[in-house]
C-alpha cells in the first residue's frame, strides 16, 4: 500500500516535499524553541553560576565556586526550604485525606453527586492570584473571618493573622488547600471508578462493613494510583511560589517565603533589587533543582512497593 501511495505521490507532484521534510517543517518552531527557550537558558544559568553578575557586563567577574559556597551558609535560603517542607506537610496531610473522603462519598452515586463534584472542583479554575487576594481580605485583621470566629465565641480578640509567621502559614495552607483539593478529588474519583464493583459485592456477602471495605479493598486497590496522585500533589506543593508571593509576599519579614517565592522575590526582575547578583541566583536555582530531583527519586524509591501491591 505504502509503495503504491509513494509512486502516486511521485507521479502527481514531483516537486512536493517529502513527508519527513514536512514533519520537520511542521514542528520546526518547537525544535527552535526547545533549543532557544529550554536548552539555552539552562546553559546560560549553569555558566553564569560561576560569575558575579549583576546585569552590567563591565562589573561581571569570574568567582569560581564561591556562589555555591555562599549558598551553603545562606540562612534565608535554607529557612525557605524549611517553610516549604512545613507548608507541604500541612497541606498534604489535610488535602489528600479530604480529597479521598470526598471522592469515596461521591463514588456512591447518590443523587446530586455530579453537581457536588462540579462545585468542589470550582476553586481549581480560579487564578491563584485571586485566591491570594480573597485570602488576604478574609483573614484581614478587620476582616470577616475574625468577625465570624468571635461571633461563634471561638476567639475573644481578633487575630492578626499576617503578623505572626505560624498563623500566616496556617492561612496560606488553608487558602492553598481550598484552591487545589478539587483536582486531587477528581483524580481519586477516576481511580475509584476503576475498582471492580464485584469486590464490594463479595465483601458485602462476607459481611464486611463499609469502613472495613474502605480500608481492606478501596485503599489497597487504589494504592498504585494514589502514590502517583500523592507524588503530583507533593511535587506541585513544593513548587508553590506565586501564590505565596501574592498572598503574604513572604511576610512577616520573609518567614513564609517558600523556595519558589524566595527565588522569585530575590532574583526575578521587578521583584528583586536592581543590582542583585544574578550569578548567585543561578547557583541557588541549580541547587534547588538538584534537591527537587533528589526528593522525587527518594519518593519513587520508597513507594515502589505500592506499585505492585496487587
Amino acid at each position, binding site marked *: 500500500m505504502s509503495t503504491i501511495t509513494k509512486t502516486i505521490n511521485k507521479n502527481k507532484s514531483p516537486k512536493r516535499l517529502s513527508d*519527513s521534510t514536512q514533519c520537520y517543517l511542521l514542528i520546526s518552531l518547537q525544535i527552535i524553541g526547545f533549543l532557544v527557550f529550554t536548552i539555552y537558558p539552562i546553559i546560560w544559568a549553569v555558566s553564569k553560576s560561576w560569575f558575579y553578575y549583576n546585569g552590567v557586563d563591565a562589573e561581571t567577574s569570574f568567582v569560581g565556586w564561591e556562589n555555591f559556597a555562599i549558598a551553603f551558609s545562606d540562612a534565608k535560603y535554607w529557612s525557605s526550604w524549611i517553610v516549604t517542607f512545613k507548608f507541604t506537610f500541612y497541606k498534604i496531610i489535610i488535602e489528600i485525606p479530604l480529597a479521598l473522603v470526598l471522592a469515596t462519598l461521591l463514588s456512591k452515586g447518590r443523587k446530586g453527586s455530579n453537581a457536588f463534584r462540579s462545585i468542589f472542583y*470550582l476553586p481549581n479554575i480560579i487564578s491563584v492570584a*485571586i485566591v491570594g487576594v480573597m485570602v488576604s481580605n478574609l483573614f484581614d485583621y478587620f476582616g470577616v473571618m475574625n468577625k465570624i470566629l468571635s461571633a461563634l465565641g471561638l476567639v475573644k480578640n481578633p487575630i492578626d493573622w499576617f503578623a505572626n509567621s505560624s498563623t500566616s502559614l496556617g492561612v496560606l495552607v488553608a487558602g492553598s488547600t*481550598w484552591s487545589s483539593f478539587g483536582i486531587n478529588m477528581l483524580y481519586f474519583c*477516576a481511580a475509584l471508578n476503576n475498582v471492580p464493583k464485584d469486590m464490594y459485592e463479595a465483601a458485602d456477602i462476607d459481611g464486611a462493613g463499609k469502613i472495613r471495605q474502605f480500608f481492606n479493598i478501596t485503599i489497597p486497590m487504589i494504592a498504585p494510583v494514589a502514590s502517583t496522585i500523592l507524588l503530583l500533589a507533593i511535587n506541585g506543593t513544593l513548587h508553590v511560589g506565586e501564590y505565596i508571593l501574592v498572598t503574604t509576599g513572604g511576610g512577616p519579614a520573609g518567614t513564609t517565603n517558600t523556595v519558589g517565592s524566595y527565588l522569585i522575590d530575590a532574583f526575578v526582575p521587578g521583584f528583586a533589587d536592581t543590582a542583585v547578583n544574578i550569578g548567585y541566583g543561578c547557583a541557588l536555582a541549580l541547587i534547588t*533543582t538538584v534537591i527537587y530531583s533528589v526528593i522525587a527519586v527518594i519518593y519513587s524509591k520508597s513507594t515502589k512497593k505500592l506499585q505492585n501491591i496487587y
Partner: protein
Amino acid sequence: MHSVKKTNFITGIFTYLVFICVTVVVVFPLLYVILSSFKSNMEIMAYPDRYFPKEFTFDNYIQAWNSDSFNVGRMFFNSLWFTCCMVFVTLLTSSISGYVFARGEFKLKKVFFAIFSALMFMSLGSITIYPKFEVLSMLGLNKSLWGLIVMQCFGIPVVNMYMVRSFVNTLPKELDEAARIDGCSFTGIFFRIILPLLKPTLATLAILSFQQSWNSYLMPTLFTMSRPDQQTLIVGIIALKNSGEGAAAWNLMFAATSIALVPVLVVYAIFSRYFTAGITAGAVKG
C-alpha cells in the same frame, strides 16, 4: 434487612452533611467577594460581616472601569486579547505537534518525542527569565505581552500534545490513505481531514488554555513591567494590592476581582464537563 436500611439512611445523611459543609466553604469566599463588590467602601470597611449590601451600588464598577491609575476597562480588554491569542496559538501548536507525532514518519521522531516529553521536567525555574529576555530583546519583544505570545508559538504544550496524539491514534489510517490517493500531502491531510475531526479535543484544549492564560500572573507581570498600559486584570489587581493604596481600595479590588472571576465562572458553568474531561484524559495519558 431493616437495620441495613437504617444504616444506609444514616450514612446518606452524613454524606450530604459533609457535601453541604464543603460546599459552603467552597462557595463562601466567592460569594463574599462578589457581594462585597456592590457595597460602598465605607460599608466594606465598617461591616465586613454584613454579607448582603444594605444598598446595592454599581459605583465601584463605574469608578474602577474609568479610573486613570487602575483602569479596569483597559485591563479587561488586555486580558481578552491576550487570552484569545494564547488560546489560538496553543490550539495550533498542540494540534500540529500531536498530529506529527501520531502520524508522521521521520528519522528523529522517537528522539524528539522523548526530548519533548522530558521538557515537562526540564526547567531551572524563575531565574531563566533572564536568558529568555535576552533572546527576546534581540527581537524587541521583551517588553510587551506580544513577547509572551511569540514565545508560546515556539513552546510545546506537552500534555495537550499527548491528548491530540492519542486522539489521532484512534482515527483509522484509511482516512489518510484515501486522502493521499486523492492527492493530499501530509500537511494537507492535517488541515483537510484531521483538524475537522479534532473538534471535540480542541474544545477541551481551548477551555483549559483559556483558563490558564486568563489566570496567569507571573509571566504577564514580567512582560508588562515597562508597559503598564498592557497590564492584564490579574496583573493589575495584584499591582494595586501591593501598592500602598491597596489597603484602602478594597472596593476597587473587589470590583476588579469580580470582573476577573465572572468570565471563568461563566465558562465553567457552561462547559464544566470539558474541564473535567481534560483532567482525566491528562491523568490517564499524560
